[in-house]
Protein backbone atom coordinates (compact mmCIF):
# COMPACT_ATOMS: atom_id res chain seq x y z
CA UNK A 1 0.00 0.00 0.00
CA UNK A 2 1.33 3.42 -0.97
CA UNK A 3 2.00 5.94 1.81
CA UNK A 4 0.17 9.22 1.10
CA UNK A 5 1.87 12.59 1.53
CA UNK A 6 0.49 16.13 1.63
CA UNK A 7 2.47 18.04 -0.97
CA UNK A 8 0.57 21.34 -0.96
CA UNK A 9 -2.36 23.15 0.66
CA UNK A 10 -4.51 26.16 -0.21
CA UNK A 11 -7.35 28.20 1.25
CA UNK A 12 -9.46 31.17 0.25
CA UNK A 13 -10.46 33.66 2.90
CA UNK A 14 -13.40 32.19 4.82
CA UNK A 15 -16.04 34.90 5.12
CA UNK A 16 -18.84 36.80 3.45
CA UNK A 17 -18.30 36.67 -0.31
CA UNK A 18 -21.82 36.29 -1.74
CA UNK A 19 -20.79 37.40 -5.22
CA UNK A 20 -18.13 34.72 -5.68
CA UNK A 21 -19.13 31.55 -7.55
CA UNK A 22 -18.21 28.08 -6.30
CA UNK A 23 -15.95 27.53 -9.29
CA UNK A 24 -14.07 30.78 -8.61
CA UNK A 25 -13.63 29.99 -4.92
CA UNK A 26 -12.40 26.46 -5.62
CA UNK A 27 -9.99 27.57 -8.35
CA UNK A 28 -8.31 30.05 -5.99
CA UNK A 29 -7.74 27.45 -3.27
CA UNK A 30 -6.73 24.70 -5.73
CA UNK A 31 -4.25 26.88 -7.63
CA UNK A 32 -2.71 27.93 -4.31
CA UNK A 33 -2.41 24.26 -3.29
CA UNK A 34 -0.77 23.33 -6.61
CA UNK A 35 1.69 26.23 -6.27
CA UNK A 36 2.42 25.28 -2.65
CA UNK A 37 3.09 21.69 -3.76
CA UNK A 38 5.57 22.65 -6.49
CA UNK A 39 4.06 19.76 -8.45
CA UNK A 40 3.35 20.39 -12.16
CA UNK A 41 -0.39 20.87 -12.60
CA UNK A 42 -0.26 18.44 -15.50
CA UNK A 43 0.79 15.64 -13.13
CA UNK A 44 -2.55 15.77 -11.28
CA UNK A 45 -4.37 12.60 -12.34
CA UNK A 46 -7.62 12.76 -10.38
CA UNK A 47 -9.90 15.33 -8.72
CA UNK A 48 -12.12 14.67 -5.69
CA UNK A 49 -14.40 17.56 -4.73
CA UNK A 50 -16.71 18.16 -1.76
CA UNK A 51 -19.81 20.38 -1.80
CA UNK A 52 -23.15 20.33 -0.01
CA UNK A 53 -25.63 22.91 -1.30
CA UNK A 54 -24.70 24.16 -4.79
CA UNK A 55 -27.94 22.75 -6.23
CA UNK A 56 -29.78 25.21 -3.98
CA UNK A 57 -27.25 28.07 -3.90
CA UNK A 58 -26.16 28.05 -7.55
CA UNK A 59 -28.62 25.76 -9.33
CA UNK A 60 -25.58 23.67 -10.18
CA UNK A 61 -25.20 19.91 -10.27
CA UNK A 62 -22.48 17.81 -11.95
CA UNK A 63 -19.75 19.74 -10.18
CA UNK A 64 -16.86 17.26 -10.45
CA UNK A 65 -15.89 18.10 -14.02
CA UNK A 66 -16.79 21.77 -13.51
CA UNK A 67 -14.28 22.08 -10.68
CA UNK A 68 -11.57 20.14 -12.50
CA UNK A 69 -12.10 22.45 -15.48
CA UNK A 70 -11.75 25.52 -13.23
CA UNK A 71 -8.05 24.70 -12.79
CA UNK A 72 -7.41 23.45 -16.31
CA UNK A 73 -7.90 19.74 -15.64
CA UNK A 74 -11.15 19.18 -17.54
CA UNK A 75 -10.10 15.82 -18.98
CA UNK A 76 -9.28 14.20 -15.61
CA UNK A 77 -11.59 11.84 -13.73
CA UNK A 78 -13.44 14.13 -11.29
CA UNK A 79 -16.19 13.33 -8.80
CA UNK A 80 -18.18 15.49 -6.42
CA UNK A 81 -18.84 14.02 -2.96
CA UNK A 82 -21.88 15.13 -0.96
CA UNK A 83 -22.09 14.15 2.69
CA UNK A 84 -23.48 17.34 4.24
CA UNK A 85 -20.78 18.97 6.40
CA UNK A 86 -18.43 15.99 5.86
CA UNK A 87 -18.46 16.41 2.09
CA UNK A 88 -14.80 17.32 1.68
CA UNK A 89 -13.68 15.15 4.61
CA UNK A 90 -15.19 12.23 2.71
CA UNK A 91 -13.66 13.51 -0.54
CA UNK A 92 -10.24 13.58 1.18
CA UNK A 93 -10.71 10.01 2.38
CA UNK A 94 -11.53 8.94 -1.19
CA UNK A 95 -8.43 10.76 -2.43
CA UNK A 96 -6.29 8.93 0.13
CA UNK A 97 -7.85 5.62 -0.92
CA UNK A 98 -7.23 6.44 -4.60
CA UNK A 99 -3.49 6.77 -3.94
CA UNK A 100 -3.30 3.90 -1.46
CA UNK A 101 -4.92 1.63 -4.03
CA UNK A 102 -2.30 2.59 -6.59
CA UNK A 103 -4.90 4.15 -8.91
CA UNK A 104 -3.09 7.51 -9.04
CA UNK A 105 0.10 9.16 -7.76
CA UNK A 106 -1.10 12.78 -7.63
CA UNK A 107 -4.63 13.75 -6.57
CA UNK A 108 -6.19 17.18 -6.12
CA UNK A 109 -8.87 17.20 -3.40
CA UNK A 110 -10.85 20.04 -1.92
CA UNK A 111 -14.20 21.62 -1.43
CA UNK A 112 -16.11 24.85 -1.72
CA UNK A 113 -19.37 26.35 -0.52
CA UNK A 114 -21.25 29.49 -1.51
CA UNK A 115 -23.87 30.28 1.14
CA UNK A 116 -24.29 33.99 1.79
CA UNK A 117 -26.03 34.62 -1.55
CA UNK A 118 -28.95 32.60 -0.10
CA UNK A 119 -29.50 35.00 2.81
CA UNK A 120 -30.07 33.80 6.39
CA UNK A 121 -33.44 32.14 5.74
CA UNK A 122 -32.25 30.47 2.55
CA UNK A 123 -29.04 29.22 4.15
CA UNK A 124 -31.02 27.97 7.17
CA UNK A 125 -33.27 26.01 4.79
CA UNK A 126 -30.33 24.62 2.84
CA UNK A 127 -28.53 23.51 6.02
CA UNK A 128 -31.70 21.87 7.37
CA UNK A 129 -31.82 19.32 4.56
CA UNK A 130 -28.89 17.52 6.18
CA UNK A 131 -31.54 16.31 8.65
CA UNK A 132 -34.31 13.75 7.98
CA UNK A 133 -36.92 15.54 5.82
CA UNK A 134 -39.92 13.43 6.87
CA UNK A 135 -39.25 13.04 10.58
CA UNK A 136 -37.20 16.14 11.48
CA UNK A 137 -37.37 19.03 9.00
CA UNK A 138 -41.18 18.87 8.79
CA UNK A 139 -41.23 18.99 12.60
CA UNK A 140 -39.39 22.31 12.53
CA UNK A 141 -35.86 21.00 13.18
CA UNK A 142 -33.24 23.49 11.99
CA UNK A 143 -29.48 22.85 12.07
CA UNK A 144 -29.03 24.92 15.27
CA UNK A 145 -32.27 23.40 16.60
CA UNK A 146 -30.89 19.88 16.21
CA UNK A 147 -27.76 20.72 18.22
CA UNK A 148 -29.95 22.49 20.78
CA UNK A 149 -31.86 19.22 21.24
CA UNK A 150 -28.52 17.47 21.85
CA UNK A 151 -27.21 20.22 24.15
CA UNK A 152 -30.28 20.06 26.39
CA UNK A 153 -30.07 16.26 26.49
CA UNK A 154 -26.36 16.54 27.40
CA UNK A 155 -27.01 19.03 30.23
CA UNK A 156 -29.76 16.77 31.59
CA UNK A 157 -27.59 13.65 31.48
CA UNK A 158 -24.21 15.03 32.54
CA UNK A 159 -24.66 18.57 33.86
CA UNK A 160 -22.96 21.69 32.53
CA UNK A 161 -24.52 24.90 31.35
CA UNK A 162 -24.40 27.67 28.76
CA UNK A 163 -21.41 29.30 30.48
CA UNK A 164 -19.36 26.14 29.85
CA UNK A 165 -20.28 26.34 26.18
CA UNK A 166 -19.43 30.06 26.08
CA UNK A 167 -15.85 29.20 27.06
CA UNK A 168 -15.57 27.05 23.92
CA UNK A 169 -16.58 30.02 21.76
CA UNK A 170 -14.23 32.38 23.63
CA UNK A 171 -11.31 29.97 23.14
CA UNK A 172 -11.92 29.52 19.42
CA UNK A 173 -12.34 33.25 18.81
CA UNK A 174 -9.05 33.88 20.63
CA UNK A 175 -7.29 31.33 18.41
CA UNK A 176 -8.65 32.95 15.23
CA UNK A 177 -7.33 36.44 15.95
CA UNK A 178 -4.05 35.69 14.13
CA UNK A 179 -5.59 33.57 11.33
CA UNK A 180 -5.81 35.77 8.22
CA UNK A 181 -8.19 33.26 6.59
CA UNK A 182 -10.72 33.41 9.45
CA UNK A 183 -14.14 35.06 9.23
CA UNK A 184 -13.87 36.52 12.76
CA UNK A 185 -10.42 37.71 13.78
CA UNK A 186 -11.58 39.15 17.06
CA UNK A 187 -11.89 38.08 20.65
CA UNK A 188 -15.20 37.78 22.48
CA UNK A 189 -15.95 37.52 26.21
CA UNK A 190 -18.02 34.97 28.09
CA UNK A 191 -20.47 37.75 28.96
CA UNK A 192 -20.89 38.74 25.30
CA UNK A 193 -21.54 35.13 24.36
CA UNK A 194 -24.13 34.67 27.11
CA UNK A 195 -25.88 37.96 26.32
CA UNK A 196 -26.18 37.27 22.57
CA UNK A 197 -29.64 36.55 21.12
CA UNK A 198 -30.94 32.98 21.21
CA UNK A 199 -31.20 31.07 17.94
CA UNK A 200 -32.65 27.85 19.33
CA UNK A 201 -32.52 27.55 23.14
CA UNK A 202 -30.04 26.72 24.60
CA UNK A 203 -27.99 27.57 21.48
CA UNK A 204 -27.26 31.31 21.25
CA UNK A 205 -25.69 33.28 18.44
CA UNK A 206 -22.17 32.82 19.82
CA UNK A 207 -22.66 29.07 20.16
CA UNK A 208 -23.15 28.83 16.39
CA UNK A 209 -20.77 28.94 13.46
CA UNK A 210 -21.47 31.76 11.01
CA UNK A 211 -22.70 31.47 7.41
CA UNK A 212 -19.54 31.34 5.34
CA UNK A 213 -18.32 31.35 1.74
CA UNK A 214 -14.97 29.76 1.03
CA UNK A 215 -12.88 26.96 -0.42
CA UNK A 216 -9.97 24.72 0.52
CA UNK A 217 -7.73 22.33 -1.38
CA UNK A 218 -4.90 19.84 -0.88
CA UNK A 219 -2.51 18.16 -3.31
CA UNK A 220 -1.74 14.58 -2.28
CA UNK A 221 1.04 12.45 -3.73
CA UNK A 222 2.21 8.90 -3.28
CA UNK A 223 5.43 8.23 -1.38
CA UNK A 224 7.10 6.99 -4.56
CA UNK A 225 6.11 10.07 -6.58
CA UNK A 226 7.38 12.39 -3.82
CA UNK A 227 10.72 10.57 -3.67
CA UNK A 228 11.15 10.37 -7.44
CA UNK A 229 10.34 14.07 -8.00
CA UNK A 230 12.03 15.34 -4.83
CA UNK A 231 8.78 16.88 -3.55
CA UNK A 232 9.05 18.65 -0.19
CA UNK A 233 6.13 16.96 1.59
CA UNK A 234 6.96 16.38 5.26
CA UNK A 235 3.36 15.62 6.34
CA UNK A 236 2.06 12.05 5.94
CA UNK A 237 -1.59 10.97 6.07
CA UNK A 238 -1.04 8.25 8.66
CA UNK A 239 -4.64 7.29 9.39
CA UNK A 240 -8.12 7.60 7.97
CA UNK A 241 -11.48 6.54 9.39
CA UNK A 242 -15.17 7.09 8.79
CA UNK A 243 -18.24 6.21 10.82
CA UNK A 244 -22.00 6.44 10.44
CA UNK A 245 -25.21 6.59 12.45
CA UNK A 246 -28.98 6.96 12.03
CA UNK A 247 -29.83 10.21 10.22
CA UNK A 248 -32.58 11.28 12.63
CA UNK A 249 -31.75 12.06 16.26
CA UNK A 250 -34.92 10.27 17.40
CA UNK A 251 -33.41 6.98 16.20
CA UNK A 252 -30.15 7.27 18.20
CA UNK A 253 -29.57 5.21 21.34
CA UNK A 254 -28.32 8.35 23.12
CA UNK A 255 -29.07 11.99 22.35
CA UNK A 256 -25.93 13.11 24.20
CA UNK A 257 -23.18 11.20 22.45
CA UNK A 258 -21.88 10.71 18.90
CA UNK A 259 -20.85 7.10 18.21
CA UNK A 260 -20.14 7.81 14.51
CA UNK A 261 -17.14 9.85 15.70
CA UNK A 262 -16.07 7.00 18.01
CA UNK A 263 -16.16 4.57 15.07
CA UNK A 264 -14.25 6.94 12.78
CA UNK A 265 -11.63 7.61 15.47
CA UNK A 266 -11.08 3.94 16.32
CA UNK A 267 -10.51 3.13 12.65
CA UNK A 268 -8.15 6.08 12.20
CA UNK A 269 -6.11 5.33 15.37
CA UNK A 270 -5.75 1.68 14.27
CA UNK A 271 -4.83 2.73 10.74
CA UNK A 272 -2.13 5.09 12.04
CA UNK A 273 -1.08 2.60 14.71
CA UNK A 274 -1.31 5.23 17.45
CA UNK A 275 -3.39 5.81 20.56
CA UNK A 276 -5.32 8.90 21.58
CA UNK A 277 -2.40 9.93 23.83
CA UNK A 278 -0.14 10.39 20.80
CA UNK A 279 -2.25 13.26 19.44
CA UNK A 280 -0.56 16.67 19.91
CA UNK A 281 -3.12 18.97 18.30
CA UNK A 282 -6.68 18.62 17.10
CA UNK A 283 -9.09 20.35 14.75
CA UNK A 284 -12.65 19.28 15.59
CA UNK A 285 -15.99 20.01 13.96
CA UNK A 286 -17.40 22.72 16.26
CA UNK A 287 -20.34 23.81 14.11
CA UNK A 288 -21.87 24.55 17.51
CA UNK A 289 -20.07 24.81 20.84
CA UNK A 290 -21.76 21.64 22.13
CA UNK A 291 -20.40 19.81 19.05
CA UNK A 292 -16.83 20.42 20.23
CA UNK A 293 -17.72 18.93 23.62
CA UNK A 294 -19.30 15.86 22.02
CA UNK A 295 -16.30 15.50 19.67
CA UNK A 296 -13.55 15.58 22.30
CA UNK A 297 -15.45 12.93 24.27
CA UNK A 298 -16.08 10.65 21.29
CA UNK A 299 -12.45 10.98 20.15
CA UNK A 300 -11.41 9.58 23.52
CA UNK A 301 -9.79 12.70 25.02
CA UNK A 302 -12.44 12.76 27.74
CA UNK A 303 -14.89 10.29 29.24
CA UNK A 304 -18.54 10.86 28.45
CA UNK A 305 -19.80 13.81 30.47
CA UNK A 306 -16.27 15.10 31.22
CA UNK A 307 -15.59 17.21 28.12
CA UNK A 308 -17.95 20.04 29.01
CA UNK A 309 -15.41 21.76 31.31
CA UNK A 310 -12.35 21.36 29.05
CA UNK A 311 -12.31 24.89 27.64
CA UNK A 312 -13.24 26.54 30.93
CA UNK A 313 -10.44 24.64 32.71
CA UNK A 314 -8.06 25.83 29.93
CA UNK A 315 -7.15 22.26 28.99
CA UNK A 316 -8.00 22.76 25.29
CA UNK A 317 -6.90 26.39 24.98
CA UNK A 318 -3.88 27.52 22.96
CA UNK A 319 -1.44 27.00 25.78
CA UNK A 320 -3.26 24.11 27.42
CA UNK A 321 -2.05 20.50 27.44
CA UNK A 322 -4.31 19.48 24.53
CA UNK A 323 -5.02 22.42 22.21
CA UNK A 324 -8.22 22.06 20.19
CA UNK A 325 -9.05 24.23 17.16
CA UNK A 326 -5.93 26.38 17.00
CA UNK A 327 -7.28 27.61 13.65
CA UNK A 328 -10.28 29.18 15.40
CA UNK A 329 -12.50 26.24 14.52
CA UNK A 330 -15.74 26.44 12.58
CA UNK A 331 -16.99 28.88 15.21
CA UNK A 332 -14.53 31.69 14.42
CA UNK A 333 -12.79 30.60 11.23
CA UNK A 334 -16.18 30.00 9.58
CA UNK A 335 -17.98 26.97 8.13
CA UNK A 336 -18.25 26.97 4.34
CA UNK A 337 -19.84 23.54 4.66
CA UNK A 338 -18.31 21.69 1.71
CA UNK A 339 -14.90 23.31 2.27
CA UNK A 340 -14.64 22.59 5.98
CA UNK A 341 -13.23 19.04 5.92
CA UNK A 342 -10.23 19.79 3.71
CA UNK A 343 -9.99 23.21 5.37
CA UNK A 344 -9.25 21.47 8.69
CA UNK A 345 -6.58 19.38 6.94
CA UNK A 346 -4.99 22.53 5.49
CA UNK A 347 -4.86 24.14 8.95
CA UNK A 348 -3.49 20.98 10.62
CA UNK A 349 -0.83 20.60 7.91
CA UNK A 350 0.36 24.17 8.37
CA UNK A 351 0.34 23.80 12.16
CA UNK A 352 2.58 20.71 11.84
CA UNK A 353 4.85 22.21 9.16
CA UNK A 354 5.43 25.28 11.31
CA UNK A 355 4.07 27.85 8.86
CA UNK A 356 0.78 28.54 10.70
CA UNK A 357 0.54 31.69 12.83
CA UNK A 358 -0.34 29.45 15.80
CA UNK A 359 2.44 26.89 15.18
CA UNK A 360 4.41 28.46 18.03
CA UNK A 361 1.81 27.06 20.44
CA UNK A 362 2.81 23.51 19.44
CA UNK A 363 6.52 23.68 18.44
CA UNK A 364 7.20 20.00 19.14
CA UNK A 365 3.98 18.59 17.71
CA UNK A 366 4.36 15.57 15.47
CA UNK A 367 0.79 14.23 15.30
CA UNK A 368 -2.43 16.03 14.41
CA UNK A 369 -6.03 14.82 14.29
CA UNK A 370 -8.84 16.29 12.21
CA UNK A 371 -12.51 15.52 12.89
CA UNK A 372 -15.20 16.41 10.37
CA UNK A 373 -18.88 15.66 11.14
CA UNK A 374 -22.02 15.67 9.01
CA UNK A 375 -25.45 16.86 10.18
CA UNK A 376 -25.90 15.78 13.80
CA UNK A 377 -22.96 13.40 13.32
CA UNK A 378 -24.77 10.81 11.22
CA UNK A 379 -21.42 10.73 9.47
CA UNK A 380 -17.95 11.45 10.79
CA UNK A 381 -14.52 11.41 9.18
CA UNK A 382 -11.27 11.41 11.17
CA UNK A 383 -7.75 11.76 9.79
CA UNK A 384 -4.37 11.48 11.49
CA UNK A 385 -1.44 13.50 10.12
CA UNK A 386 2.19 13.01 11.11
CA UNK A 387 5.11 15.31 10.31
CA UNK A 388 8.68 14.20 9.76
CA UNK A 389 11.05 16.77 11.18
Amino acid at each position, binding site marked *: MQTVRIAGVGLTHFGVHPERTGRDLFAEAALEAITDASVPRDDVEWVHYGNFMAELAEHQGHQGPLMAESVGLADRPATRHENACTSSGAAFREAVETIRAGSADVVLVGGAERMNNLGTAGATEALAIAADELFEVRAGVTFPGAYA*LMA*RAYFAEHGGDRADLAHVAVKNHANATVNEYAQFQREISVEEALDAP*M*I*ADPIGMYDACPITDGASAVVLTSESYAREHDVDAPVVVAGSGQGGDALALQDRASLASTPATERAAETAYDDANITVDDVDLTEVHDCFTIAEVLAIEALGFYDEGEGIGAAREEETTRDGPRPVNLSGGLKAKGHPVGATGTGQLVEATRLLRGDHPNSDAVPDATTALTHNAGGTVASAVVHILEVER
Partner: protein
Amino acid sequence: MTSGAPVRDSGFDDFLDALADGDGYYLECSNGHGSFPPRRACRVCGETDLEQRTLPSSGTVETFTIVRVPTPQFEGETPYVTAITAFGSVRLTGIVRDVDPDSVERGLTVEPSVERWDDDTRRLTFEPR
Protein backbone atom coordinates in the same frame (compact mmCIF):
# COMPACT_ATOMS: atom_id res chain seq x y z
CA MET B 1 -41.65 23.95 -4.19
CA THR B 2 -43.74 21.34 -6.01
CA SER B 3 -46.38 21.99 -8.66
CA GLY B 4 -49.63 20.20 -9.41
CA ALA B 5 -51.48 17.88 -7.06
CA PRO B 6 -49.59 16.84 -3.94
CA VAL B 7 -48.01 13.41 -4.19
CA ARG B 8 -48.22 11.24 -1.10
CA ASP B 9 -45.18 9.71 0.54
CA SER B 10 -46.43 6.15 0.83
CA GLY B 11 -45.79 4.59 4.19
CA PHE B 12 -45.11 7.92 5.88
CA ASP B 13 -48.46 9.51 4.96
CA ASP B 14 -50.27 6.26 5.83
CA PHE B 15 -48.63 6.47 9.24
CA LEU B 16 -49.76 10.11 9.65
CA ASP B 17 -53.33 9.14 8.58
CA ALA B 18 -53.41 6.48 11.27
CA LEU B 19 -51.94 8.82 13.88
CA ALA B 20 -54.54 11.49 12.99
CA ASP B 21 -57.28 8.88 13.52
CA GLY B 22 -55.90 7.99 16.93
CA ASP B 23 -54.55 4.67 15.65
CA GLY B 24 -50.81 5.42 15.77
CA TYR B 25 -48.45 2.53 15.24
CA TYR B 26 -44.79 1.72 14.88
CA LEU B 27 -42.85 -1.19 13.43
CA GLU B 28 -40.91 -3.70 15.47
CA CYS B 29 -38.48 -6.48 14.57
CA SER B 30 -38.19 -9.74 16.56
CA ASN B 31 -35.29 -8.20 18.50
CA GLY B 32 -37.50 -5.40 19.78
CA HIS B 33 -36.04 -2.57 17.69
CA GLY B 34 -38.70 0.02 16.91
CA SER B 35 -39.00 2.28 13.87
CA PHE B 36 -41.47 4.12 11.65
CA PRO B 37 -42.49 3.67 8.03
CA PRO B 38 -41.47 3.75 5.26
CA ARG B 39 -39.11 0.97 6.33
CA ARG B 40 -38.38 -2.39 4.70
CA ALA B 41 -35.57 -3.45 7.00
CA CYS B 42 -34.96 -2.86 10.71
CA ARG B 43 -32.71 0.20 11.02
CA VAL B 44 -30.62 -1.57 13.67
CA CYS B 45 -30.36 -5.24 12.68
CA GLY B 46 -31.66 -5.33 9.11
CA GLU B 47 -34.41 -7.87 9.80
CA THR B 48 -37.14 -7.57 7.16
CA ASP B 49 -40.00 -9.20 9.07
CA LEU B 50 -41.42 -6.14 10.84
CA GLU B 51 -44.61 -6.29 12.91
CA GLN B 52 -47.00 -3.36 13.33
CA ARG B 53 -47.43 -2.45 17.02
CA THR B 54 -49.74 0.02 18.72
CA LEU B 55 -48.08 3.35 19.55
CA PRO B 56 -48.69 4.36 23.18
CA SER B 57 -51.30 7.14 23.30
CA SER B 58 -48.98 9.46 25.20
CA GLY B 59 -45.26 10.01 25.54
CA THR B 60 -42.65 11.88 27.58
CA VAL B 61 -40.65 14.85 26.27
CA GLU B 62 -36.98 13.85 26.38
CA THR B 63 -35.45 17.02 24.97
CA PHE B 64 -36.71 20.17 23.27
CA THR B 65 -35.64 23.49 21.80
CA ILE B 66 -37.34 26.84 21.29
CA VAL B 67 -36.61 27.73 17.67
CA ARG B 68 -36.27 31.48 17.07
CA VAL B 69 -34.54 31.52 13.65
CA PRO B 70 -36.68 29.38 11.30
CA THR B 71 -36.51 28.01 7.79
CA PRO B 72 -38.80 29.84 5.29
CA GLN B 73 -41.51 27.16 5.83
CA PHE B 74 -41.83 28.27 9.47
CA GLU B 75 -41.55 32.02 8.87
CA GLY B 76 -43.92 33.93 11.14
CA GLU B 77 -44.34 31.00 13.55
CA THR B 78 -41.42 31.71 15.87
CA PRO B 79 -40.84 31.09 18.64
CA TYR B 80 -42.02 27.50 18.44
CA VAL B 81 -41.03 24.42 20.41
CA THR B 82 -39.71 21.28 18.71
CA ALA B 83 -39.39 18.26 20.99
CA ILE B 84 -38.17 14.67 20.82
CA THR B 85 -40.67 12.55 22.72
CA ALA B 86 -40.29 8.95 23.88
CA PHE B 87 -43.25 6.58 23.36
CA GLY B 88 -42.00 3.43 25.08
CA SER B 89 -39.25 1.99 22.91
CA VAL B 90 -39.57 4.53 20.06
CA ARG B 91 -39.21 8.30 19.78
CA LEU B 92 -40.91 10.88 17.58
CA THR B 93 -40.01 14.49 16.79
CA GLY B 94 -42.78 17.10 16.66
CA ILE B 95 -43.92 20.61 17.40
CA VAL B 96 -45.42 21.21 20.84
CA ARG B 97 -48.72 23.11 20.49
CA ASP B 98 -51.05 24.79 22.99
CA VAL B 99 -48.26 25.72 25.34
CA ASP B 100 -46.23 28.76 26.41
CA PRO B 101 -42.76 27.96 24.97
CA ASP B 102 -41.05 29.03 28.18
CA SER B 103 -43.12 26.61 30.27
CA VAL B 104 -42.09 23.43 28.41
CA GLU B 105 -39.97 21.07 30.47
CA ARG B 106 -38.34 17.70 30.01
CA GLY B 107 -40.65 15.00 31.31
CA LEU B 108 -43.81 16.73 30.06
CA THR B 109 -46.50 14.21 29.07
CA VAL B 110 -47.85 14.83 25.57
CA GLU B 111 -50.20 13.22 23.06
CA PRO B 112 -49.26 13.03 19.38
CA SER B 113 -51.41 14.65 16.75
CA VAL B 114 -51.26 15.67 13.09
CA GLU B 115 -51.75 19.21 11.83
CA ARG B 116 -52.47 20.05 8.19
CA TRP B 117 -50.17 22.90 7.26
CA ASP B 118 -50.96 23.37 3.56
CA ASP B 119 -52.02 21.21 0.62
CA ASP B 120 -48.62 19.55 0.51
CA THR B 121 -47.54 19.25 4.10
CA ARG B 122 -48.73 17.89 7.36
CA ARG B 123 -46.87 18.25 10.61
CA LEU B 124 -46.54 15.94 13.55
CA THR B 125 -47.47 17.83 16.71
CA PHE B 126 -47.64 17.15 20.44
CA GLU B 127 -50.24 18.49 22.84
CA PRO B 128 -49.74 18.47 26.61
CA ARG B 129 -52.15 16.07 28.29
